[in-house]
């Protein structure tokens, strides 16, 4: 997580820490113990709120709405583990698998399981159980089997990037109980799911036998389906410890004195143009659309400074080469291109732009895009449509999409973006390969990036050791609850603007 405010304790802060050291030797221990604020503490209930509705934690679900997918994966990390995990540097680290190796062609991979791991119901993790779970998640194009201490994954094609694939996404190891419920090896086990009107309440207990160590908090109380305004109020009034903050709420929350933390800009807002449709068949028209959009206003005004202008699909902090994709806001050139193309996008045949009707940020961005395009002479019919994964995506000339970055490494991150955008994602072994794969849809103006947005949270003063990946997500097993931080304490930073 990015921290823009200085969180470095000044040496002056020793004032409190050592103020008691001159007391009698007999009380020396107690004095320092009482002031030892660094080491984590166990206990307490962590209260978390989320906006996205998730009906159950089954990783076999495939919600097609990106926000639901992200929410489900986030919840699944509470209960389940993957074979491999990503550390905060984006480096692959052993998870339930302690090592992995592959054959010369990369078609057969062997993952040796960690000894002594148990599911939260006490049953041991075995290779057949892990293989069965992965087979269901990877699908029939993979052959997943078990041997004495390992899971073996094979395919007809070389499985380039399989470890990174298994370290992200929904590839969790689970075991189906006799009653059909799923249990995992993760830090928590869920004990309660109940609907409360529009919201759902879930409770999780600490998994005392978690192989990676018991989480610090005893219990996790999760309310989901809570809208952004309600979440901001909940954190302000001490009714929650961790809430999600939509971009439009972050600045306001900080002004209310709420501690906020944000990831690096990672979520892509982009326009996807259907080049098969007559309205945007001409590449000059597509280029004109790109030139007509004022991305800076979208980032700074519509998204309240929580977004960064996107010139590529990957944010520059992941790729490092975004300067190779120059974009500009050039209304006159956009008009010239439209004029040269001879296309008329008038009231009688407007450009159809669709966005997720349940997404207030998407609606605001779509409205701004419509205004920009109208200034260039393109009449736009912006239409909110439900994107819940159940209905078929509506036919449209242009779709406004939001896609999250799943990994902080260029190749898998781009792979994860290209697939839902309907763009080919070839094997990408080098940074040159990644650049070429990203350049293709951008140069053809099939995808027009708009902004990258940070993922933001509001934290109560009690929340300690919030160490979340800079590409978003959370790690609630390592969070602990301390006493409220004193005002102005440097021990807990905030990156609120």
């Amino acid at each position, binding site marked *: *997580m990015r*921290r823009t405010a200085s*969180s*470095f*304790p000044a*040496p*002056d*802060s*020793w*004032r409190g*820490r*050592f*103020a008691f*050291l*001159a007391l009698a*030797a007999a009380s020396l*221990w107690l004095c*320092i*113990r009482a*002031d*030892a*604020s*660094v*080491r*984590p*503490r*166990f206990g307490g209930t962590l209260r978390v709120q989320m906006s996205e509705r998730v009906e159950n934690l089954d990783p076999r679900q495939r919600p097609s709405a990106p926000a639901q997918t992200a929410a489900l994966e986030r919840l699944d990390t509470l209960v389940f583990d993957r074979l491999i995990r990503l*550390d*905060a*540097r984006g480096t692959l680290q052993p998870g339930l698998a302690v090592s992995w190796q592959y054959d010369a062609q990369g078609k057969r991979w062997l993952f040796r399981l960690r000894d002594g791991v148990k599911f939260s119901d006490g049953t041991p993790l075995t290779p057949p159980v892990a293989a069965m779970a992965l087979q269901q998640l990877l699908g029939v194009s993979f052959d997943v089997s078990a041997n004495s201490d390992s899971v073996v994954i094979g395919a007809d094609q070389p499985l380039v990037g399989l470890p990174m694939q298994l370290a992200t996404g929904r590839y969790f190891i689970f075991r189906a109980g006799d009653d059909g419920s799923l249990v995992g090896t993760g830090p928590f086990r869920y004990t309660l799911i109940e609907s409360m009107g529009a919201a759902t309440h879930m409770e999780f207990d600490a998994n*005392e*036998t*978690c192989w*990676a*160590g*018991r*989480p*610090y908090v005893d219990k996790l109380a999760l309310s989901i389906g809570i809208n952004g305004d309600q979440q901001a109020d909940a954190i302000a009034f001490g009714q929650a410890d961790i809430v999600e903050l939509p971009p439009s709420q972050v600045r306001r929350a900080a002004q209310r004195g709420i501690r906020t933390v944000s990831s*690096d800009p990672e979520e892509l807002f982009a326009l996807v143009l259907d080049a098969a449709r007559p309205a945007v068949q001409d590449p000059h028209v597509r280029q004109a659309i790109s030139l007509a959009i004022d991305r800076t206003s979208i980032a700074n005004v519509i998204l309240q400074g929580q977004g960064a202008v996107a010139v590529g699909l990957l944010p*520059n902090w992941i*790729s*490092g*080469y*975004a*300067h*190779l994709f120059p974009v500009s806001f050039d209304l006159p050139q956009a008009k010239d291109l439209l004029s040269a193309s001879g296309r008329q996008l008038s009231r009688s045949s407007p450009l159809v732009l669709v966005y997720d009707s349940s997404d207030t940020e998407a609606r605001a961005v779509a409205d701004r895009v419509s205004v920009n395009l109208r200034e260039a002479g393109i009449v736009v019919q912006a239409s909110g449509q439900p994107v819940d994964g159940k209905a078929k995506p509506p036919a449209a000339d242009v779709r406004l999409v939001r896609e999250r970055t799943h990994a902080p490494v260029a190749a898998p991150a781009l792979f994860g973006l290209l697939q839902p955008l309907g763009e080919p994602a070839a094997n990408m072994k*080098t*940074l*040159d390969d990644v*650049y070429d794969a990203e350049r293709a849809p951008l140069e053809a103006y099939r995808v027009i990036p708009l902004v990258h947005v940070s993922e933001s949270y509001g934290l109560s003063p009690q929340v300690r*050791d*919030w*160490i979340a990946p*800079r590409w978003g997500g959370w790690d609630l*097993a*390592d969070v602990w609850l*301390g006493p409220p931080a004193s005002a102005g304490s*440097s*021990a807990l*930073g905030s990156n609120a603007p």
Partner: protein
Amino acid sequence: MKLADEIGAKMPPGAQASCEFANLSSLPAEDAARIEQSFREALRSWCIPQSAQNAAGVELSVTLSENWKELVWTAQIRTSGATIVLLETSPRTAKSQGAPGAMPLTLRAEKIWEGPRRILDFVTLQPQSPVAPPEFWLLTDDGVVLRQVGGTIISQLQLPRSVPLSRDPVGDLTKDVRDVKASFSGKVCAISSESFSVTECHAVVIGSRNSTDAVGPPTADSIVRQRGNQSAFVEGACPFVRPVLGSGRGDYTEKDFVQLFDPDGFRADAAGIPVSAPIFFAGPVLDISGVEDLGIVVHNLESENYEAYRIFISCSR
């Protein structure tokens, strides 16, 4: 430079280009200028002098950029027909650290270990021969004792475990007359410093749950050494002061420092007196250990590695 070679290979035969360099990275201007100079040297035969005419119309733009992990070099060779893009990455250079200052004591940190495994504690064993390098024993969070000489791990030993792993494990290595005592996961084991084998282990009474790891019961030894509390008394550093080496008070998300304080300068209503300049680290100080032989363990938040440092104190008064 590899990129310079690649540029040479992609240039139109016999052509020279007008060359531009740009620095978009966070590298300091003087460092970037030095790199640009060496790049210009490497590309001398491909770049036309600035005063000369660009007859072939070839343009070369080299840009130093960065992502969060490494420096990214891009080269764009523009000819009349097309643009060729070349990319190359290189690791960032490590930042130097030091602790200058006009304080009575001077701290210096020497890194003896860096790696992805969490280090709980380490001890230094002086060799019999004065010319031999010192031997370090490091205790990892999975109960392995690593024996390192001259930067190389020469052997390792697995300690038995009696309680489950903790998310915030603590362990302790203490030099004895002939052995090293290792406390880890509810057991205290004696390890022979000659044979590097466990000679004896016994369980210790522990609190409930993982509480021993998070908050250990005070012992006579810990009153002096304050292990796990990110502070330790320093014995014998200087004749005029018995300072406390302490870290910051942030949580594990914070960058940290160590600094020496004069405990006699503490009063209930006043600040302690710093007696050294702080040394800053790229992550939290997880452990401070030792009385005469000081060491700290740092979790580097930039590299995600765990680092073990020996701390040396110079008395300058």
